[in-house]
């Protein structure tokens, strides 16, 4: 059949059952993204004869004789359409994976002619996980606050992302947006049982199918235990995983993998594999998992070798400690508050699913192009598992379509590596949206019991915390999330007597992993709720309670171990200002209270504290080259997934070399490029990689000035010397390096406050006012930083009110966006983002990290506001309408 794409004729023969999205991508239109393949997210949006459709649910045969327009047909980076221009000016994207669909939808006359108030309805089919939608609404309304990149310098300015024009026109290539000759596809047969052992597996019929190249089973993989969770120090995660394991510990776990010429063939071959399962007893309740007699999920492991705390009790990690005497202090306390709080499983829901494409390069070296936050860590671990020399493997990323911690994992790379080595052919393994819910790690659900004791003046005297985390069937990030989660959340308050009992346990539920905030948010939900209750009982404002009890410079930063050695410092202390900013903003009016007798209004707040870098080392080593044209080229290992680090790195170099940010060329996240980077997690992109960039640029500046002679100075246009202005490019070639090791670390504070109205008849929660006071140190890029805070707030509103990956007997029920509600434009209020005027002694130009931090205080602030409104405290996330309704109608 024939049809047109962006005015060009296309001849194609779609197979029966093919959808328009895959046909368009097959013909090279990779600007059409896959977000869900279910018509829910809108990333695949195109126009067919001018009408907007979701191309993933349009049967391909229907476009015969018709004209398709993609985002790339609307404009080019050089000649942006008016809508694309507005998305650039308003910074209306972060990772940018949803942007093609956003721009296409925004370009329709329906949207062009719509009132701004109607936009939430018109955009309910376009999901963005990064921005929180404010910047998108600004783009739609033509409000832009960013600056051009052509002016020298950069720090403190709202410089646009280097990729902005490419993102809004669909030209920026993500993981799978590239052509590979003779590509084959990998599909995985998933376990139907939550606990089983493979007695026998017969792949004969599958192997005999035409187009099938290989079938991999547990008999084909190295017997090397590892963890999918990746850290700088690989010993932080337990070695409990095999690429393919004869023992299956969760429903959906890999049983076998098929490599075939097409994905359809690979899936058909999976269905042809005969497996004889011995179903084993399973345990799903984390409380039951540590009782005697419970099925042991990793009972076969050696505790020391695998670094599992107590495999005989299903405990992967534990921490117990007491400072002072909690029981005695509670006995004497004027006020005692106690409760047990629960948080849900949450999915990262990055719009780009996990995916890897691998091949052998001309030298026979294995190359992996992957959607990862940690390409260097993936490289190191794959070399270990597969016994490869480091120079026989290259791992790199293109722009990554969102991460949030979900891509600090090794989930697709191992199978692709094995399949390429087995077949010699290029191989692709792409998660479906369903895989993201069933096979990618989820946020750890936690049960947190808190008891607080205080004096009648509201001075804390005792803190007793008991944490139980469900790490699921594998321990990736289990110890880290447990230990980190119980650290800054509790260290925030000066309390002479404290006790912590924390355990993370294996169950036969899907694996939990790293998620924005890394365990802190779950504990803060409990502790900040309990703090709110203390304020109520004492009769002071919750802001005042924090002022009386929060640590301040000079206080030790500790949990229960008074002798703990720490590299944490008060690099800049912005808590008092953040508290004042949020308190003052909350006192201002917001949205009006809805009319009707059933609405109750309340206010609430909560505080989050977080270390500005991950603990125990985070390394980055960058290379900066001065080019003859007066620009600079930067090799940096950290990945860009919407966090905006590329923009900030360009700004840092531009500032120090007095050149425009658009003169800085950045190559990132490639083990063939920069020497090393631990990875884009723990909010390290600015404070670790950015610090290394800062040092490389400082050295570059010093060397240029030294070469230019005494009295020289850098200025826009070149180097001012005694003999006049010399072009910077005249000092090329020049190469410098910079490195950072992630220590010492500082502290950042976020204070969120809400005013809400709650409908007593339905349980509906309306946010009337949302403010966050942010202690970010120097603000390097105000629009980007605002976007990080808004995006973190929106994601947290999702976890607080809507999101729960529901699992019944180990089987995930919520496998699509239509059944797992991430915030739409209609769900996210505008949040006032208020920056404290702090300066951090540790970060580049005085900046702190600010990616995870904004997420953490949101859920407890919302819970406290709901409590204030209805007089009943919510103890469970999400605080969905049915749960709030039930609190009101017990």
């Amino acid at each position, binding site marked *: 059949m024939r049809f047109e794409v962006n005015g060009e004729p296309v001849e194609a023969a779609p*197979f*029966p*059952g*093919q*959808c328009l999205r*895959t046909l368009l991508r097959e013909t*090279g239109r*990779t600007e059409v993204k*896959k977000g869900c*393949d*279910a*018509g829910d997210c*809108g990333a695949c949006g195109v126009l067919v004869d001018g009408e*907007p*459709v*979701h191309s*993933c*649910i*349009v*049967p391909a*045969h229907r476009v015969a004789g018709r004209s398709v327009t993609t985002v790339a047909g609307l404009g080019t980076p050089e000649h942006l359409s008016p809508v694309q221009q507005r998305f650039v000016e308003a910074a209306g994207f972060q990772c940018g994976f949803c942007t093609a669909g956003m721009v296409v*939808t925004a370009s329709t006359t*329906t949207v062009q002619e719509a009132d701004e108030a109607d936009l*939430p*309805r*018109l*955009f*309910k*089919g376009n999901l963005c996980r990064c921005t929180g939608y404010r910047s998108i609404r600004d783009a739609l309304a033509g409000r832009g606050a960013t600056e051009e990149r052509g002016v020298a310098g950069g720090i403190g300015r709202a410089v646009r992302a280097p990729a902005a024009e490419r993102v809004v026109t669909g030209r920026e290539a993500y993981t*799978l947006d590239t*052509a590979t*000759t*003779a*590509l*084959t*596809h990998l599909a995985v047969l998933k376990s139907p049982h939550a606990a089983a052992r493979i007695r026998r597996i017969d792949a004969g019929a599958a192997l005999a199918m035409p187009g099938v190249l290989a079938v991999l089973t547990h008999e084909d993989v190295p017997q090397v235990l590892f963890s999918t969770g990746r850290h700088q120090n690989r010993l932080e995660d337990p070695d409990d995983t095999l690429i393919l394991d004869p023992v299956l510990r969760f429903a959906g776990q890999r049983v076998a993998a098929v490599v075939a010429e*097409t*994905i*359809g*063939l690979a*899936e*058909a071959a999976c269905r042809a594999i005969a497996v004889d399962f011995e179903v084993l007893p399973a345990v799903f309740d984390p409380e039951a998992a540590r009782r005697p007699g419970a099925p042991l999920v990793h009972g076969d492991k050696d505790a020391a070798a695998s670094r599992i705390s107590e495999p005989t009790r299903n405990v992967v990690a534990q921490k117990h400690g007491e400072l002072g005497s909690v029981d005695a202090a509670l006995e004497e306390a004027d006020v005692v508050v106690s409760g047990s709080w629960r948080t849900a499983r949450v999915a990262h829901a990055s719009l780009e699913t996990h995916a890897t494409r691998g091949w052998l390069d001309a030298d026979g070296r294995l190359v992996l192009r992957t959607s990862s936050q940690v390409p260097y860590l993936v490289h190191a671990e794959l070399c270990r598992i597969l016994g490869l020399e480091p120079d026989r493997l290259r791992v790199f990323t293109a722009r990554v379509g969102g991460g949030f911690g979900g891509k600090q994992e090794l989930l697709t790379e191992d199978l692709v590596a094995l399949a390429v080595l087995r077949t010699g052919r*290029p191989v*692709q393994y*792409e998660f479906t949206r369903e895989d993201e819910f069933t096979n990618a790690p989820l946020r750890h659900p936690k049960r947190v019991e808190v008891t607080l004791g205080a004096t009648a003046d509201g001075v804390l005297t005792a803190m007793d915390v008991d944490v139980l985390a469900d790490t699921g069937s594998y321990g990736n990030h289990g110890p880290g999330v447990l230990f980190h989660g119980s650290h800054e959340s509790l260290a925030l308050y000066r309390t002479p007597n404290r006790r912590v009992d924390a355990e993370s346990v294996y169950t036969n539920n899907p694996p939990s992993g790293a998620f924005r905030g890394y365990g802190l948010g779950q504990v803060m939900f409990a502790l900040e709720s309990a703090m709110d209750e203390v304020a109520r009982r004492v009769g002071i404002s919750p802001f005042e309670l924090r002022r009386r009890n929060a640590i301040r410079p000079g206080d030790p930063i500790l949990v229960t171990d008074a002798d703990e050695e720490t590299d944490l410092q008060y690099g800049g202390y912005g808590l008092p200002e953040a508290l004042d900013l949020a308190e003052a903003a909350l006192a201002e009016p917001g949205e009006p209270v809805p009319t009707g007798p059933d609405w109750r209004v309340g206010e609430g707040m909560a505080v989050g504290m977080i270390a500005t870098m991950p603990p125990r080392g985070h390394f980055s080593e960058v290379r900066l080259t001065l080019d003859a044209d007066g620009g600079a080229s930067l090799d940096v290992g950290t990945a860009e997934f919407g966090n905006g680090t590329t923009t900030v790195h360009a700004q840092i170099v531009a500032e120090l070399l007095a050149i425009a940010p658009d003169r800085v060329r950045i190559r990132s996240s490639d083990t063939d490029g920069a020497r090393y980077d631990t990875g884009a997690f723990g909010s390290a992109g600015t404070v670790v990689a950015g610090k290394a960039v800062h040092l490389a640029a400082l050295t570059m500046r010093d060397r240029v000035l030294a070469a230019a002679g005494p009295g020289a100075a850098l200025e826009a246009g070149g180097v001012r010397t005694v003999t006049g202005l010399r072009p910077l490019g005249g000092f090329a070639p020049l190469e410098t390096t910079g490195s950072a090791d992630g220590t010492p670390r500082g502290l950042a504070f976020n204070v969120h406050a809400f005013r809400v109205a709650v409908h007593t008849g*339905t349980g509906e929660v309306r946010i009337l006012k949302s403010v966050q006071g942010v202690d970010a140190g120097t603000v390097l890029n105000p629009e980007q930083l605002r976007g990080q805070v808004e995006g973190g707030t929106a994601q947290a509103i999702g976890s607080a*009110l*809507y999101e729960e990956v529901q699992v019944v007997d180990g089987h995930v029920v919520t496998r*699509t966006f*239509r*059944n*797992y*509600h991430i915030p*739409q434009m*209609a*769900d996210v209020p505008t949040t006032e983002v208020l920056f404290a005027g702090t300066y951090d002694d540790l970060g580049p130009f005085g900046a702190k990290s600010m990616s995870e931090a904004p997420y953490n205080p949101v859920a407890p602030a919302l819970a406290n506001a709901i409590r204030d409104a209805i007089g009943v405290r919510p103890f469970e996330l999400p605080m969905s*309408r*049915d749960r709030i*309704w039930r609190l009101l*109608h017990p």
Partner: protein
Amino acid sequence: MGWDGAMDLPTLTEVRLPASRADLAALSSSVIPLGGGTWLFSEPQDHLTGLVDLTTLGWTPWEVRPDGGLSVAATCTMAQLVAIPARDDWCALPLFRQCAESLLQSFKIWNTATVGGNIATALAAGALIGLGGALDAELVIWTPDGGERRQRVADFVLAQRVTTARPGEVIRSIEFAPEALAATTAFRRIALSPLGRAGTVLAARRDRDGSFVLCVTGGTTRPEVIRFPDLPAPAELAAAIGAIGTWFTDPHGAADWREGVSALLAEEIRQELAQQEGSTPCGSR
């Protein structure tokens, strides 16, 4: 060249583009009718081997019946449905848009999704099932023997994803009687989020003779139709809601909440329709 992995419908071996009713003979339990495809293509359908694309039959999207009623073709899109122009004697027309807006999906899906597909899919939250139930709309179903049968929408849907349709049957159209179209209507819905998938949907009408029909969908496993000869008293209506026994729990709401908020919304509907009592009949407006 390879670009991508697809989540297409790889088990299909053919998609037929019929030119006439005779071409529907290929339908079976594994070869099924394709409407817009917005649901069929949104989930794996590994049990299917073929589709027959009804949209190539060229059915007129909607027609006024000789008796002043309305016949809507199964292949009429949501966009075409909400664009049916107002008529003095079709007071119920606003309910069409209200139900279409209740669809989880955006206005873009309206260009592809069809009326027949929405009903045949028989999701609890099927937007047009509530519309058909409240207006006592009747389906015209083509049977494989070349005949047809008629059945009310509310009776056609038996449970989630279960209808009375047998293999080979095709919904041809949905018919609205003039009496129902002349009724005054009211509509309420609520979800766990402002524009999320419905937790419960209540669509109601009051005929010129005063009789009251309320159809509850979204939170019940099948459409529940409540009838009173006249506007019920609050307690009567509450008792009728309380007598519904098919509330269910899923990610879009718990059964007890669905029942509780349905009682609240039903009472709102009752009051809204009561306020219109004695106002000018719709047809003469």
